[in-house]
């Protein structure tokens, strides 16, 4: 249904217009047509949003869809469905697939495959270096022309400072950001968890905080010198927040994201050696968690991004040390942050929605994440009070490697519209959502 849809009686919360009011929202021809009180639209399909929040569709700046090459972990279809179920209508996909997304034809492949699935607005990143090897720059100009929205060697960060400097400088022609997984591998080594008390107790090799901060500092200095837009991925340390706060004051072009798990869990979660809590960067200390929350509140950190990283159950069952890094996040992001932060008074609902819509849109310069008249009608409706329990069997993602398994959460996506199509309602996919 791409005709007329009237969303009635909700609380329209759109930080891009500073809007937070009880209103109706009319969608026509896939675009936002009007917002106002008691709108009338004869013949329009209606969606009741009574008691619910009507927000712009969420944007996730950091998703691994594992396609091409690792379809046993996730596919464009399952990952897109997971996104929709979590309220995300735009997702940016990382280039560390097999083959690596380092040429324009792979950007085009991802975009055309996603168009066939027809659920989300999939925006691929291209690699910074060929094969993520850190040796040869990708043809960033052509990747950008093909539709790349940024460049990242996520997971295999550019180790060589000279190469990173070139990448930042060269990328300026595209006006696209370099998304930086900050990890100095000579410091993280064979580390499995944060180097702290838990690592010492459990006898596990640690990943010190400096593995992240040393590279953040390096790349901020490089960006200050040669320009380019630096986006720091999955920030995990208090000192990292400090570095970015200071850099923003100096007007260095930098943005940053934080994951729901780093905002809600700390290293103690590892005490039972459960690989569902293993990700990179690792869960840090309570002090880091508090600093990340503060950074999100004061705008030092721009966006919430999930770093959705699905793995098969067998891979995660190998035990904490052998299991791969990564957790899924698309389907729990909103609810975890509602439960752990908003409902506990640690974050305003408007700030959370801002960090899921307007701010990530600004990070990439997207015309999404807004309900302004004429915008593409990506809309996420959620019930802030609805409670549910995280169950693996209900996941749309192939990955059930969630640290929140069994958690009772408060806040649930009830309806999602993407490009004006009502794709999801009350746990059901519809109107092509079946694909």
């Amino acid at each position: 249904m791409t005709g007329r849809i009237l969303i009635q009686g909700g609380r329209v919360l759109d930080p891009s217009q500073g809007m937070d009011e009880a209103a109706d929202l009319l969608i026509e021809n896939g675009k936002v047509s009007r917002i106002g009180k008691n709108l009338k639209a004869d013949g329009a399909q209606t969606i009741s949003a009574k008691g619910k929040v009507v927000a712009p569709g969420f944007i996730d700046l950091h998703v691994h869809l594992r396609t091409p090459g690792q379809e046993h972990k996730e596919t464009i279809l399952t990952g897109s469905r997971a996104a929709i179920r979590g309220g995300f209508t735009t997702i940016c996909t990382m280039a560390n697939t097999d083959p690596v997304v380092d040429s324009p034809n792979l950007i085009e492949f991802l975009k055309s495959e996603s168009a066939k699935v027809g659920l989300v607005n999939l925006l691929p990143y291209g690699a910074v270096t060929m094969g993520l090897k850190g040796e040869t720059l990708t043809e960033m100009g052509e990747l950008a022309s093909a539709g790349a929205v940024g460049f990242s060697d996520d997971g295999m960060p550019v180790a060589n400072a000279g190469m990173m400097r070139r990448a930042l400088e060269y990328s300026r022609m595209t006006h696209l950001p370099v998304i930086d997984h900050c990890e100095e591998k000579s410091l993280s080594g064979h580390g499995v968890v944060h180097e702290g008390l838990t690592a010492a107790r459990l006898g596990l090799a640690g990943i010190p905080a400096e593995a992240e901060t040393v590279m953040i500092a390096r790349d901020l200095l490089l960006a200050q010198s040669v320009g380019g837009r630096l986006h720091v991925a999955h920030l995990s340390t208090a000192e990292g927040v400090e570095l970015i706060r200071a850099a923003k004051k100096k007007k260095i072009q930098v943005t940053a994201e934080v994951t729901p798990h780093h905002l809600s869990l700390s290293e103690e979660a590892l005490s039972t050696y459960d690989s569902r809590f293993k990700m990179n960067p690792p869960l840090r200390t309570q002090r880091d968690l508090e600093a990340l929350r503060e950074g999100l509140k004061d705008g030092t950190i721009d966006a919430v991004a999930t770093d959705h990283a699905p793995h098969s159950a067998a891979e995660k069952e190998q035990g904490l040390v052998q299991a791969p890094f990564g957790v899924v996040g698309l389907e729990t992001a909103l609810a975890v942050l509602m439960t752990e932060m908003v409902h506990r008074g640690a974050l305003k609902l408007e700030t959370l929605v801002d960090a899921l819509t307007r701010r990530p849109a600004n990070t990439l310069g997207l015309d999404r994440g807004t309900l302004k008249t004429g915008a593409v009608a990506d809309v996420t409706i959620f019930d802030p009070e609805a409670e549910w329990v995280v169950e693996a069997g209900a996941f749309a993602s192939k990955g059930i490697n969630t640290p929140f398994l069994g958690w009772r959460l408060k806040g649930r996506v009830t309806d999602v519209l993407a490009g004006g199509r009502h794709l999801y309602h009350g746990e059901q996919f519809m109107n092509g959502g079946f694909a």
Partner: protein
Amino acid sequence: MTRWTRKDLLGLEELTQEELELLLQQAQAFKEVSLRPIKKVPALRGRTVALCFLEPSTRTRASFELAAKRLSADILSFQGASSSIVKGESVLDTARNIEAMRVDVLVLRHNTSGVAAMVARGIRCSVVNAGDGSHEHPTQGLVDLYTIREKKGKIEGLNVVIVGDILHSRVARSDFWGLTKLGAKVTLCGPPTLVPAVMENLGARISYRLEEALDGADVVIALRLQLERQQEQYIPSFREYTRLYGIDRAKLERAKPDLIVMHPGPVNRGLELSPEVADGPQSVILDQVTNGIAVRMAVLYLVSGAHQESPDVLSKTPFENKISRPPVAGSK
């Protein structure tokens, strides 16, 4: 009186002081058994203990085997090289297969921290951690507690120094927890790269100077230094390590005369312990080995749950508690 209710023994960190006492008392009872001419009791008769050592081990495996035999258990033995782990089967799969053979207790040694906990969660039969990576080696910790109490008459209030590669040592962790829970003061000593300073938050004292740490110490436990630590640049050379952290007669001269020297074995002679100290009058290293069997008998007995069924089994030899006694040679 506390009763043993745990399915597994995975580490000493999770045990209460009462549970530690219970294990030590049980070990005391079995030590008496081992002084008898017939060193065997029927405590685990009809039960099966699987020894699954997926990392090279001689003495711990032998100690467990002898402990199980002296309890009259049947033994199933898996070892690293011959096991299907090398064929790519996961540890958990191996454990599930062992469980499916109706084994009662699985004794597991693995080179990765946390594997014992993972396996224990995944199967119903009892799991005894015989050392998991750098995490814990609870039976060695119990052996050390038992030996210290045997030699010193108590543990509470003693000053115990653990010296060496604390960072990678499962023995150090088990010793630290056991000793701390029983009221000893523990000092962790070694080069800063091998002593996690954060252990101070758990109540340990940290020292980088062995002479200082030994001052007033009642017990020193030297750890085996793995030879790869030098390649990994945790230490610049073995020579310097020995000079600074090796225990020799000169360093002991300034310590209390009744200080006892312990080591979980095998000793790198001339590296962490000089030969004259390893074999000297203050060394109780071989007592640790002897006590290892009684301690492991206690562990197997308690985790198997056998104590709940026949509490008086210790008073009998294997041949006494059934009606049909085997014929004694020459009695016809």
